[in-house]
């Protein structure tokens, strides 16, 4: 059986569905919190306050990771559908993984790195973490 970039996709298929189901809940929460619970005002304070609590940190982190994997696995699915040349597939799969990882790390750092409104960590420090 083909493995790696040529592999089947049983797990991807299953994961898309499980993550999709969780994402429904997460997105409902996300939208509610963001746009309706406080009349749609999105300010630094509100976001930062929320992100400061560990519970929210975990929720958002899960949400982020799931969404990224789900979305990027979706890309891989599309690549598998339409790209039949081995090299091209190798390249695209690598590209999708790279972008996916970068985005996931970036997002994760943002969430973890967020501190209560004040005192704020020195920008350089945070910036350093991101890079």
């Amino acid at each position: 059986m083909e493995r790696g970039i040529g592999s089947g996709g049983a797990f991807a298929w299953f994961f898309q569905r499980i993550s999709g189901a969780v994402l429904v809940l997460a997105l409902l929460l996300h939208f509610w919190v963001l746009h309706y619970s406080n009349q749609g005002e999105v300010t630094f304070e509100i976001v930062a306050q929320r992100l400061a609590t560990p519970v929210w940190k975990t929720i958002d982190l899960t949400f982020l990771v799931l969404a990224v994997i789900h979305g990027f696995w979706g890309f891989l699915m599309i690549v598998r559908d339409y790209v039949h040349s081995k090299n091209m597939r190798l390249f695209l799969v690598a590209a999708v993984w790279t972008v996916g990882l970068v985005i996931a790390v970036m997002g994760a750092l943002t969430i973890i790195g967020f501190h209560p409104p004040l005192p704020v960590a020195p920008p350089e420090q945070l910036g350093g973490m991101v890079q």
Partner: protein
Amino acid sequence: MRYKWKSGQWAFVLHRVSGVALSFYLIMHIYVVSSLYDPQNFDTVMAFLNQPLFKILEIGLLAAVVFHGLNGIRVMMIDFANATRVHAQIFWVVLAVSAVLIAVGAVPFLMHAGVLGH
């Protein structure tokens, strides 16, 4: 003549397009948010993003999320609940519910954007 487009094909293409759109949005979103560790910056950008144009785009985003999510549930019903017999009907339900949710959801967006006034 091309092959006739039936509900299943529409659902698939819309799901795929919305999924890709959402993923690109997610990339952008994370990038934007992560570079906004500075409160000042954050509020400026948020203000910028509060322009009507972006609000309209946000409605598109909402539409994508709503359809993709609801159709995702439809797909799962087919996958796990043997709903093939009524797949077309579920698609119409998905479309109808999406339309309602998008319309309801769009109202506050547009209100905030001042398009509809307060």
